[in-house]
């Protein structure tokens, strides 16, 4: 009976943690370029968002402590520590398995603004924090200049 109560409490705890953390965002870096609002132009906003999932091994360790019994969690802890030896180096957010998602973003801007009259570029490097899994995000915001005469 006590086992069932323990398991139920664990599930409730995990669920509430997940719900609390699921909307957490973390800003790593932001940069803004020059803003040109001169002339007879409309500023048409655009946004490009690319992301990749990453795995946080420290989070995995603490989750295994909650979900497993002490013997199994100790084994999981050792395996995860061993994995961390293969992931050494400076880190910003959680490690990802591919960096292709940030490749040639200038082409995506070009698609959004074929006239090439782009201004107010803001690059944001941020992360969405979920338990164990993290969303590593790069967001580009900017404006495409469009002449008011063009609209007519």
């Amino acid at each position, binding site marked *: 009976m006590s086992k069932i109560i323990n398991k139920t409490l664990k599930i409730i705890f995990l669920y509430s943690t997940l719900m609390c953390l699921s909307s957490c965002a973390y800003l790593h870096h932001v940069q803004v370029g020059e803003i040109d609002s001169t002339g007879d132009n409309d500023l048409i906003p655009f946004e490009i968002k690319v992301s990749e999932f990453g795995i946080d091994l420290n989070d995995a360790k603490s989750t295994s402590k909650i979900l497993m019994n002490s013997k199994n969690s100790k084994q999981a802890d050792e395996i995860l520590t061993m994995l961390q030896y293969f992931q050494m180096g*400076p880190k910003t957010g959680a490690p990802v398995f591919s960096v292709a998602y940030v490749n040639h973003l200038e082409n995506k801007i070009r698609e959004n603004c074929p006239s090439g009259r782009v201004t107010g570029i803001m690059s944001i490097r941020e992360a969405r924090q979920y338990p164990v899994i993290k969303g590593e995000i790069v967001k580009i915001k900017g404006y495409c200049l469009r002449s008011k005469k063009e609209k007519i």
Partner: protein
Amino acid sequence: MNRMWVLKVILLFGIFMSLASCTHSVHIVNFSDFRPYREAKTAVSIEAKSEQFVVLGFTDNTSYVNEAYQRLMQKCIDGQISGISTQYYTSLGFFSWTNHIVMQGLCHKVN
């Protein structure tokens, strides 16, 4: 029972190897301005890369950023480069890592 144990080991080894495989950490993705304004279809995408291998914090190549910068300039001689994105990321490894600089931009040939 024995067969199950072997399958379990294979599965665990597979998970371990996939997690231990090359992982990366993206630090910064910056963008320059798109000046002078030019029609996007006239531009050509260019790219320059450079890297620095580090073992336990020790390295001999400290000019890798400048190398990428020079390479980018060489890719668009007699032209203008705009919309330059600079990516700085690290490929993580076993007691060592590689820092990468990737510069990508649009080359507009003047003539």
